[in-house]
C-alpha cells in the first residue's frame, strides 16, 4: 500500500499552513505580554510612590529634615517656592478684597441712581399715556389700528390655507393633457379663433371634460392667492399709515413732557450699572480662584507636596531594590517601608520572570519561523522533483503529520526531506523515462530490478536507489544550502 504524491504534497501544504497560523497566533499573543509589562511598570511606580510618601509624609520643614539626604535640598527649594507663592497670593487676596469693597459700593450707588431714573421715567410715561387717552382722535386711530390688525391676521391665516389648497390641487390640472389643450387654445374666451370641424370637436371635448367648471376652479386656484396677497399688502400699508399718525401724536406729547431725555438717561444708567456688575463679578471670581489656591497651598499634601513626591519617586527609580532593602532594614522600628520594599521586590521579580518568559517565547517563535522556511524549501524541492505527480508514490511508512509534530528546528525539517525522498517510488518504468529525462542512473535501477527477477527485483531496485541517494548526498555536501544540489540529485530519477 502506497500514498500518492499529490496526497503527500497536500499534507505538506496543510502542515505549513497550520504552522503559519500557529506562529501568527503566538505573535498576536505578544500584545498581551506588552500589557502585562505596562501593568507591572504601573505597580512598580505605585510602590515607589508609596515609599516616597512614607519617607516624606508631608511637605514641612520637620518632615524634610527627617527624610533622605539625597532629596532634602531639592524638596527644600520646593518648600521655599510654596511659601513665596503663599505670601504673594495673600497680598493679591488683600488687594482684591479692597477692590471688591469699592466696586460693591459703586454698584449700590448705580442701582440707586437707576431706580430713581426708572421711577421718574415711569411717572412721565404715565402722564404721556394719560394725555394720549384724553385725545379723542388718538383713541379713534388706535381702535382703527386694532381692528385692522385683527383683520390682517385673519386674512393671513386664510391666505395660508388657500395657498396650501392651490399647491395640493393645481398639479392635477397641469398634468391633464385634455384640459391643458383647451386652456392653451383659450377655449371659451374671446381669444378662441377656430372655426368649422375643429370648433365642433373642441366643443365636444369641452363638454366631455366639463371644461367650464374646471377652468373656473383653475383660475380660482391660480389667481386668488396673488390677489389676496395684493389686498393684504394694501391693508398693511393702510395700517402703517395709521400707525405713523399714532406715533406722530405720541412723539408730540412725549417731547412736550421730556420723555425721550428721561429714557436716554435710564439707558445710560442701566449701562453703567451693568458695567459695575460685571466688574464685581470678575473680582468675585478672581477672589474665589485665589482663595482656592491658598487653600491648596495650606494643605500639607497639596500640589507642591505631589511635586515633591514625584521628585522623590524619580530619585528612588535610580536605586536598586537591594539598596532600598538595606535602607528599609536600617529603620528597625519601622516595618512599613520593609513591606513596601518587599512589594517592590516582588514586582521586579515578576518583571524579571516575564522578561525571561518573553525571551523564551521569542526564541520559540524564531525556531518556528525557521521550520516554516525550511518546510517551504522542502515543498519547493518536492515540486522541483515532480514528487507531486500522480505517478509518484510514497511508502505508507511515511507519515507527514507525525513527522511534522516531531519537527522542532530547521535541522529536523531538513531531515524530513531525506525521509520523503527515501520513501518515494515511481509508478512504472516507461513513464519514469518519459518524465525523468531518461537518466542513465534510472536506467541502471530499472535494469537491475528486471535482471534480478521477481524475487529479488525490489532489493535490486533499492540497491540502485541507494547508489542514487549516495550520489545526491555527495552533491549536496559540495554545495550546502544550494538547492541546485538537490535538483541535480532529483535528476537522477
Amino acid at each position, binding site marked *: 500500500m502506497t500514498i500518492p504524491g499529490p496526497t503527500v504534497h497536500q499534507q505538506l501544504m496543510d502542515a505549513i499552513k497550520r504552522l503559519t497560523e500557529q506562529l501568527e497566533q503566538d505573535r498576536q499573543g505578544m500584545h498581551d505580554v506588552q500589557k502585562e509589562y505596562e501593568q507591572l511598570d504601573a505597580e512598580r511606580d505605585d510602590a515607589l510612590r508609596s515609599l516616597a510618601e512614607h519617607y516624606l509624609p508631608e511637605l514641612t520643614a520637620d518632615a524634610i529634615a527627617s527624610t533622605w539626604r539625597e532629596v532634602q535640598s531639592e524638596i527644600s527649594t520646593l518648600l521655599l517656592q510654596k511659601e513665596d507663592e503663599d505670601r504673594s497670593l495673600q497680598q493679591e487676596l488683600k488687594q482684591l478684597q479692597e477692590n471688591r469693597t469699592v466696586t460693591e459700593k459703586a454698584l449700590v450707588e448705580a442701582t440707586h441712581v437707576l431706580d430713581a431714573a426708572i421711577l421718574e421715567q415711569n411717572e412721565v410715561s404715565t402722564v404721556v399715556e394719560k394725555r394720549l387717552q384724553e385725545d379723542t382722535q388718538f383713541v379713534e386711530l388706535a381702535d382703527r389700528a386694532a381692528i385692522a390688525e385683527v383683520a390682517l391676521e385673519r386674512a393671513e391665516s386664510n391666505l395660508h390655507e388657500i395657498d396650501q389648497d392651490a399647491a395640493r390641487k393645481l398639479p392635477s390640472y397641469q398634468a391633464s393633457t385634455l384640459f391643458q389643450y383647451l386652456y392653451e387654445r383659450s377655449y371659451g374666451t374671446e381669444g378662441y379663433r377656430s372655426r368649422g370641424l375643429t370648433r365642433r370637436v373642441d366643443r365636444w371635448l369641452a363638454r366631455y*371634460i366639463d371644461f367650464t367648471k*374646471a377652468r373656473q376652479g383653475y383660475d*380660482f386656484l391660480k389667481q386668488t392667492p396673488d390677489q389676496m396677497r395684493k*389686498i393684504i399688502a394694501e391693508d398693511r400699508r393702510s395700517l402703517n399709515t395709521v400707525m405713523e399718525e399714532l406715533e406722530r401724536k405720541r412723539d408730540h406729547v412725549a417731547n412736550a413732557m421730556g420723555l425721550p431725555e428721561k429714557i436716554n438717561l435710564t439707558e445710560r444708567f442701566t449701562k453703567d450699572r451693568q458695567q459695575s456688575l460685571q466688574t464685581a463679578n470678575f473680582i468675585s471670581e478672581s477672589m474665589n480662584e485665589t482663595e482656592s489656591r491658598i487653600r491648596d497651598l495650606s494643605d500639607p499634601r497639596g500640589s507642591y507636596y505631589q511635586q515633591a513626591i514625584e521628585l522623590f519617586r524619580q530619585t528612588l527609580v535610580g536605586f536598586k531594590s537591594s539598596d532600598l532593602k538595606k535602607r528599609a532594614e536600617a529603620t528597625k522600628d519601622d516595618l512599613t517601608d520593609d513591606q513596601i520594599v518587599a512589594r517592590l521586590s516582588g514586582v521586579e521579580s515578576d518583571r524579571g520572570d516575564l522578561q525571561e518568559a518573553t525571551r523564551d517565547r521569542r526564541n520559540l517563535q524564531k525556531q518556528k519561523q525557521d521550520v516554516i522556511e525550511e518546510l517551504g524549501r522542502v515543498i519547493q524541492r518536492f515540486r522541483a522533483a515532480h514528487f507531486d505527480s500522480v505517478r509518484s508514490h510514497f511508502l505508507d511508512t511515511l507519515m507527514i503529520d507525525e513527522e511534522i509534530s516531531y519537527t522542532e528546528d530547521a535541522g529536523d525539517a531538513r531531515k524530513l526531506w531525506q525521509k520523503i525522498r527515501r520513501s518515494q517510488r515511481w509508478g512504472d518504468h516507461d513513464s519514469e523515462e518519459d518524465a525523468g529525462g531518461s537518466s542513465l542512473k534510472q536506467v541502471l535501477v530499472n535494469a537491475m530490478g528486471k535482471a534480478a527477477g521477481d524475487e529479488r527485483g525490489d532489493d535490486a531496485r533499492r540497491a540502485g536507489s541507494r547508489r542514487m541517494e549516495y550520489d545526491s548526498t555527495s552533491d549536496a555536501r559540495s554545495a550546502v544550502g544550494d538547492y541546485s544540489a538537490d535538483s541535480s540529485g532529483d535528476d537522477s530519477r
Partner: protein
Amino acid sequence: MDVAREMRDQRETAEEMFRRDDLRTQLRDKLVRTAHMSGDNVTEEEIELAIEQFFESVHTYQDPQPGMKSFLAHCWVWRGRLTLAAAALTTVLGGLWFMFS
C-alpha cells in the same frame, strides 16, 4: 371695461376668500341645524370631517375614466403629432418599396 370688470371680480373673489373661516362656521351651523331637524345624532368630529371633505373636493379636477371616448379625445389633442408620425412612416415604407421593388 372688461379688464376693469375682470379685476373687480377677482378682487371680490379674493375678499370672499378672506371670509373663508366665516364660511366654515356657517357651514358647520347649517349642518348642525339640519342634523337636529332630521333627528340625526352626529358628533362634532363627524361634522368637522364633513366640512373638511367639502373643502377638499371643491375646485378639484380629474380626467375622465379611460375608455373609447377618452382615447378619441387624446387622439384629437395629439392629431398633429399623429399625422406627422403617419407621414414619416409612409415616407419610409414608400422609400423601401421603391428601393427593393
